[in-house]
Every structure is written in C-alpha cells, then in structure tokens.
C-alpha cells in the first residue's frame, strides 16, 4: 500500500467508512509499520481538532424566525397565485367563452377612446411628466403630516438649472374602532403575522384574546394568524397568548392539531403544559383524537421532560 492510499484509508477508518474486512487489513498494516503508525497519530490529532470546530445545534429562535418568515412568504406566494388564477379565469370567461361580448366590448372601448381623443386632444404641446410630478409633489410638501425620506438628487446641476428630485413620502395613518370591527381585525391579524417587534405582536394577540368575543376569533383570517403565531412565533409570550385566544374559540380539528404541534415541538415547558391542559379541555368538549394524535400523546406520556405533561398526556389517553 502506498502512502497516498494509506492516508485515504486512515481517513475512512477514522470516519468508520471501511467494511469489517478492510478495517482488519488496515489495522494489520498499522501494527506492522512504525512510520504509518506515526502518520496515523497525526491524522487522528487533526480529526480531534476538527471535532472542536463542530457547530452547535440551531438555536430555537433562529428556527422559529425562519419558520414564521417562510409561512409569510408562502402566503404571499399563494396570494400571487390566486391573483394570477383570477386574471386567467377572467381572461378565459371574457375572451374565450364570451368572445362575442369581448369583441363588442373591445370595439366600444376603441370607439370611446377615439371620440375622447377627438374631444380632449390638446392642440399644443402636452404637459411633461415632470410638470405633473411637480404638481403632486407641491401638494405633498405643503402638508405637515407627511415624512419625506430617500431623497435623491442628480449628480450635477445642468446649466439651465432644471433638476429632478426623487423622494418617498410616507403618511402615518390611524384607525380607531372596536376589536370586533372587520377592519381592526384585519389589521390585528396583519400585525400578528408581519410585525417584527415582538411587543407589538404581543399587544395585537392580547387584544384579540382579550376581546372576549368568540366572533372576532372565529374570523378565518384571525384564526389563521393565531394558528401561525402559536406554531411559529419566536416569542413564547406571543405563542402563549395565541394559545389562550384559540382556547376561547369553538373547538375544532385545526386547533386540536395546533395544540398537538406545540406539545410535540415547543421547547418551552410552560407552553407544553398550557397545550396539554387545552387538549384536555378539548377532549371534555367532545373533540376526538385520531391515531396520529394519540401517537403524539403516547410519545409525550413517555418521553416529555416535564412530569405534569407526561401525567396529563397519559390521563387524556386513559380517559
């Protein structure tokens, strides 16, 4: 065996990638040659060093943040898909199925544009886009409640003194209303799923949970936001409030599965305790547990680090 082959075999030996026969042969070579033995010692030291460079496990915050962002991205993707689907359906229904209607509509529109052109076409030079821009910008600049940012000026000012300034104008808005108002609900759900500040998310979920009205929580968008927060939010307090809010709504399989997911995956013992209590209440309300659910409960009754969770899981199974 040449030196290069020996080195390759040493790597595979240490990595436990040799067959029993290859292993035996390699050990014989190692015992019979002092130089190889020394080289093998050096390779072993190298592996010890590499071992110290092993990455730790993912931190849960990073994982939870990534999951939450993914679900948000997927929702955006679904909205895009449904928008595109609607456009296609519209196109199909108007231009393929009802082509006569579409044709007559197109002709009418073309005729209307032509008449409009005859009536309103300017006789002289049309105003430039810059002029329109100046008018709208001037309107914005006279207001005190608009923030101006990202102002971009040209690199050099031309001799005629005409310059174009680009900027973004942001106007703060506020909505006042009852937690049960559809617009307020929609905004709370949006805050819960897209706000990066955990404090705002917590206030949003607390507002939903504290509304005391089951109608606000039974809103599908709110429910979806709560389910997503419960499973994916990086902040345990937000997850806890989401669980409380979901416990108040009419029990169904979605909430049961979300509680089971917390029980199975959440590292926070307090949340697992809250989840197992919520599951126990669901059972009292008549929600059944199918075999995958029972499997999770059985697993938790045997392996969960928290003794209360173990006991409660066993008790749900035994009742």
């Amino acid at each position, binding site marked *: 065996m040449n030196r290069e082959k020996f*080195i*390759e075999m040493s*790597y*595979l030996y240490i*990595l436990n*990638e040799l067959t029993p026969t290859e292993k035996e042969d390699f050990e014989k070579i190692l015992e019979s040659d002092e130089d190889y033995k020394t080289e093998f010692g*050096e*390779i072993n*030291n*190298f592996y010890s*060093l*590499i071992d*110290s*460079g*092993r*990455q730790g*496990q*993912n931190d849960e915050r*990073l*994982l939870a*943040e*990534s*999951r939450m*962002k*993914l*679900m948000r*991205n*997927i929702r955006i*993707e679904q909205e895009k898909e449904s928008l595109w689907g609607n456009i296609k359906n519209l196109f199909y229904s108007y231009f393929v199925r009802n082509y006569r209607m579409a044709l007559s509509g197109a002709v009418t529109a073309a005729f209307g544009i032509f008449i409009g052109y005859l009536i309103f076409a300017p006789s002289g030079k049309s105003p430039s886009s810059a002029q329109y821009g100046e008018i709208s910008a001037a309107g914005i600049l006279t207001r005190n409640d608009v923030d101006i940012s990202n102002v971009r000026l040209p690199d050099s000012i031309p001799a005629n003194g005409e310059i174009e300034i680009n900027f973004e104008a942001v106007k703060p808005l506020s909505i006042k209303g009852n937690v049960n108002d559809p617009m307020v609900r929609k905004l709370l759900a949006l805050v819960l799923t897209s706000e990066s500040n955990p404090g705002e998310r917590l206030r949003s979920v607390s507002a939903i949970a504290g509304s005391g009205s089951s109608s606000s929580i039974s809103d599908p968008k709110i429910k979806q936001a709560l389910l997503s927060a419960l*499973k994916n939010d990086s902040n345990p307090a937000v997850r806890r409030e989401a669980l409380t809010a979901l416990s108040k709504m009419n029990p169904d399989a*979605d909430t049961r*599965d979300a509680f089971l*997911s917390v029980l199975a*995956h959440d590292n926070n013992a307090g949340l697992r305790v809250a989840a197992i209590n919520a599951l126990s209440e669901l059972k009292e309300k008549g929600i059944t547990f199918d075999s*995958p659910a029972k499997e999770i409960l059985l697993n938790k009754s045997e392996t969960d680090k928290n003794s209360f969770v173990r006991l409660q899981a066993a008790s749900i199974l035994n009742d």
Partner: protein
Amino acid sequence: MTDVQLILSAQQGDMKAFEELVCRYDRQVLNIARSFKNNDDDAKDIYQEVFMRVYKGLKNFEFKSEFSTWLFRIATNVCITHQSRRRGHESLDREFDYEDDKSTVADFIAGESRTDSSTIGADIMAHINKAVEKLPPQQKMVFVLKYFQEYKIREIAQIMNCKEGAVKKYLFIATNKLRDHLKNVF
C-alpha cells in the same frame, strides 16, 4: 402520518401537511446551511430559498427518491449556488486573504492575551471555519456534510447526486488541504 401521506396531502393544497413536512426536516436544513455558510443571516436566506423551492416543486414530486434526499439535494444546491453568487463579490477579498493570511492556529494559541481556554477554542474554531471557507464549493459541501453533519458517504452521494467514489475523492482532497493549512497546530 408518514412522509408519503403528508406529501400527497400537501400536493392537494393542504398547508397543514406542508407545515408538518417542514417541521420534520427544517432543523437539518438549517444545520447544513449554518455549517456551510457559518453565518446566521446567510443560513436564514438559504432556508427560505430551499423551502420556497420545495413548496413550488412539491406538486411535481414523483416519489422517484426519498423526500428527504430530494430536499437535502435542493439544500446543498442552494448552499453551493449561494456561495457562487457571493464569490463574485468576494473574489478580491479572497485573493487578499490568501496572500495576507500567514497566521496559524499555533499563532493564536501562542498569543499572550489568549490564555483563556474557551477563547483558544473559539479561535481554533474560527481558524478551521476560515480554512473550510476557502475550499471549492463541492469539496466544502462534502466536508461539511461528512464532518459537521456526520452523514455517511453513501448518503452524501445520494444527496449530491454523484458516485461514492467522487465523494471520497472530494473528501480526500478537502481533508488534505485542511491538514496542510492547519499543520502548524500539531
């Protein structure tokens, strides 16, 4: 539920099934990305790209391989292309690094101000990561999957869609380069 049941449900548009699939494997994907990039922000970007590709491609998944193999293959491809995209911007820095960086782990250990063992451990890790970072993407991926994620060579070959012999070759070359780079430690 098995992976197959979850995939079939997800293919019908069941988001809960898709989420369950994600939860089963996303730790490993994030681990691979973190080991490969050694940077949380990059790992998070890779995570998003991998699972968005999975979400879009799942409808066409035909069970020709295990779901996990398909998923990790996407993950390794995204890691490698992510690396390639950044290489263009980093090429000058890298050249500078190679020429300028003559320090070794032994230098770190010998440093007077670095007597604390945890600091030395962190320095060794930093040095190893720096050396791994300099490997070509394919060699680096094989090295990361084998040493940091402890996959078997057979599994790496499946994930990277190549022969076991090729994986062994990459591993051999990568290990030799790292040994060479870190030899002053011994």
